[in-house]
């Protein structure tokens, strides 16, 4: 039960649900939540491989920390952009944000 396959399976389910969220949602904040799911799936993989590859070195943990930092930076900037979008066009529907569409 507590073997690497179960962790990888959970991570791949999380990843697929994140991809589904990103593809189907039109609300920009919901898309951001899908991205968080994908990043969490990647983090589970990093830490599971680190643990089952023997924990002599903790490089996987370091990578997971960097992923979390990037997720924090990305969430801050993305929410600033989304709030600006809401102020300018009154909605956070990504299909409505088409000013720059060629």
């Amino acid at each position, binding site marked *: 039960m*507590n073997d*690497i*396959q*179960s*962790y990888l*399976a*959970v991570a*791949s*389910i*999380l*990843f*697929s*649900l*994140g*991809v589904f*969220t990103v*593809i*189907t*949602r*039109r*609300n920009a*904040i*919901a898309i*951001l*939540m*899908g991205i*968080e*799911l994908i990043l*969490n799936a990647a*983090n*589970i993989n990093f*830490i*599971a491989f*680190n*643990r089952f*590859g*023997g*924990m002599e*070195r*903790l490089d996987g943990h*370091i990578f*997971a*920390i*960097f992923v*979390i*930092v*990037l*997720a*924090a930076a990305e*969430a*801050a*900037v993305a*929410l600033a*952009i*989304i*709030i*600006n979008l*809401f102020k300018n066009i009154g909605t*956070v529907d990504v*299909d409505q944000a088409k000013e720059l569409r060629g």
Partner: protein
Amino acid sequence: MSSLLFLFLIVMIIISAVIVAISSQLIHSAVALLFTLFGVAGLYVFLYADFMAATQVIIYVGGILVLIIFGVMLTNKINTPSIASSSVNQIIGFLASSFLLLLQFAVIFKTDWPQKTFNESWGTGTTAKIGNLLLQDYLLAFEVISILLLAALIGAAFLSRRSS
């Protein structure tokens, strides 16, 4: 007992992630994301990653999720029908994500992964080792990512200020 808890964590993660993906109320998705992130922190505990579990709870649940809920509340009109309930491309999304899922399952269950069992020498906690790695082998990456984080925070504050 431990495997029962593990099963409970997995079920909680998957159910709340499904709610994140398909709930029609955006705030319900945000609350379900809370349970997903807590469940992932629990998985880190099972993987002997104590520092990562604490980091996950502090940064994701205490930081990013609060930010997301603030975003939901600042941009969602309560009375009008929310656009979160309308979703597009459901068939394409389902096909693409289930294709990815099957592909990953095929790889996961056909590969012979390394399976090191628990070693007593791990049992002293990971925080000191992570600190040594961050300030020795990964010092450059650590400094670069701290500057990136500072730049991202200044940029976010700049983007979201009220224009004069």
